């Protein structure tokens, strides 16, 4: 690696990937816009949750750039707030799932033996676990009995955390399998053996020596998962198990709009378009990262 750090090299390769760059820019813009949602609401002088029955289905106007929805709320502001929720759910759930999967995969792959066999059969079980009853059970479990603070349980955000928890609880399996397979291969590599010979403990070897080598595949899996989770949230909304009103998410905005598809099609087009752009962007970014972080590409380069 002469004259150029690994990161600089990866960045250069990533930037060469035009679609990936476009995707990253898109995501950055969407995230910034979503972050600015309260500003937009203040600027337009509207509240994303306050219904105004006199102003239903208003056409676009300076006060409401994209018009109003079926309860007279500003569509643009709700889309921006929805972006906060959807991006938050997508990213946080994907990261949680990746973290969980990494831990399980590392331990299974490094330790091997019965622990590996047990963890992998457990993973198989989770993959085969039917999501629907699980969702219903979780939608009904009295969370205060699980020791969660009462203030949190009573808050409207609870449906948000619930979804993140559920998605993370069933979504870690892919990463776990991926990480385990790579760990198995890395375990026998000279640098790991050398570290073992120097007396490094298993935790240190896993974290310091093996984990960095897995970073690229974990990052890629996470970006791709984030897109899928945003889609999954919209499906959950379709089943009435998603984010609950009045909190907007792209998923529930789209679901609510499907019954209005004939009378107010734009209400469905906007969230649909945003989901589409976001998922495509995540995929392109993941794609670009895959190329940029491909260790074989690095090896060939050096």
């Amino acid at each position, binding site marked *: 690696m002469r004259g150029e750090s690994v990161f600089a090299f990866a960045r250069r390769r990533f930037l060469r990937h035009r679609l990936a760059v476009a995707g990253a820019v898109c995501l950055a813009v969407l995230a910034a816009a979503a972050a600015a949602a309260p500003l937009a609401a203040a600027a337009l002088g509207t509240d994303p949750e306050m219904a105004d029955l006199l102003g239903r289905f208003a056409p676009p106007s300076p006060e409401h750039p994209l018009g109003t929805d079926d309860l007279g709320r500003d569509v643009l502001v709700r889309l921006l707030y929805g972006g906060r929720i959807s991006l938050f759910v997508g990213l946080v759930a994907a990261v949680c799932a990746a973290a969980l999967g990494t831990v399980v995969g590392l331990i299974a792959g490094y330790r091997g033996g019965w622990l590996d066999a047990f963890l992998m059969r457990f993973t198989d079980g989770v993959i085969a676990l039917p999501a*629907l009853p699980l969702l219903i059970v979780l939608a009904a479990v009295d969370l205060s009995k699980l020791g969660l603070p009462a203030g949190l349980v009573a808050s409207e955000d609870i449906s948000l955390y619930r979804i993140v928890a559920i998605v993370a609880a069933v979504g870690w399996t892919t990463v776990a399998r991926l990480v385990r397979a790579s760990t198995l291969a890395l375990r026998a590599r000279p640098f790991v053996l050398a570290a073992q010979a120097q007396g490094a403990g298993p935790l240190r070897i896993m974290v310091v020596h093996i984990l960095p080598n897995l970073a690229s595949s974990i990052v890629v899996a996470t970006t791709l998962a984030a897109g899928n989770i945003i889609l999954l949230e919209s499906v959950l909304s379709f089943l009435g198990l998603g984010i609950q009103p009045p909190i907007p998410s792209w998923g529930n905005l789209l679901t609510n709009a499907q019954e209005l598809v004939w009378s107010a099609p734009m209400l469905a087009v906007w969230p649909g378009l945003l989901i589409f752009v976001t*998922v495509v962007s995540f995929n392109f970014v993941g794609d670009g990262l895959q190329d940029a972080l491909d260790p074989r590409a690095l090896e060939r380069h050096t």
Partner: protein
Amino acid sequence: MTRFLLQRLVQSAIVILVMSFVVYGLLGLMPGDPIDVMITADPNMTPADAARLREIYGLDRPILERYATWLGAALQGDFGFSRLRAQPVIDVLVPALGNTTILLGAAFALSLALGLAAGVTAAARPYSRLDYAINFAAFAGISIPPFWLALLLIIVFAVILGVLPAGGMGTVGSHGLWDSLSYLVLPVASLTIASVGAHTRYVRAAMIDTLRQDFIRTARAKGLSGRRVVLGHALRHAMIPVVTIAALDFGYVFSGAMITETIFAYPGMGRLIYDAVMGNDYNLALVALLFATALTLAGNLLADIAYVALDPRISFRSLER
């Protein structure tokens, strides 16, 4: 090979047994029992009625005992009756399974075929304009929420153009093949569009990876034509990850086509499972879900057999653990 198969069958049986317990427990954890739902529907029910009905349905016994009873009967081939449909579970399951097999079989085959064609085309010239176009189309397909896609297809082809039926199983009174096929076009298309993107991506990635490898270069150096290299050698090799993904999909789609089935009013397994779970139909939900699990396991087994067929370096022995 026999030993391998035996080993896998035993493992699968154990997984299904464990899953049956987990699913039973999960259903048991769901709030409210069927009698609670009936009480809501019928104001005149007395406490005695509720107790009597609970006893009839065996709901008054602890869940472990119920599970043991169920398992005992199931092992003798008696899966009980569906509470909602008041018919043997198998009688309810079989037609739905048939419908789903037709729908998903068609969508799966189509998606795999299209995915292979598109993936190979894209991989032949990576980062060309054609590659970008195919990638973009693939991501587009992945990125549309399934219910939205289904509705869009209905609006365009059934309402605006009026060329295809909007949903259902067939025109009543007409039993022609054409008629039945026409009802399949839109649901199959919507499932295909949703899954072809992923298949394309996997084929493309695997092909690019393979084309870089030494044995392909050797084949090229030996003077084999591009087309023969790609189709004859590389594709065979590239099929392995594709088979893995396809196998994973296999079980999933049986319960995962629910949304499409709902919008196209197509009575398949996805809907059945959903209704059974929502309607607290223990026996039906349990057997249907276990069936999906069994299919996932069968899919994985088939995938392993396919590996051996596809790659001479993999043997059944190496798959045994």
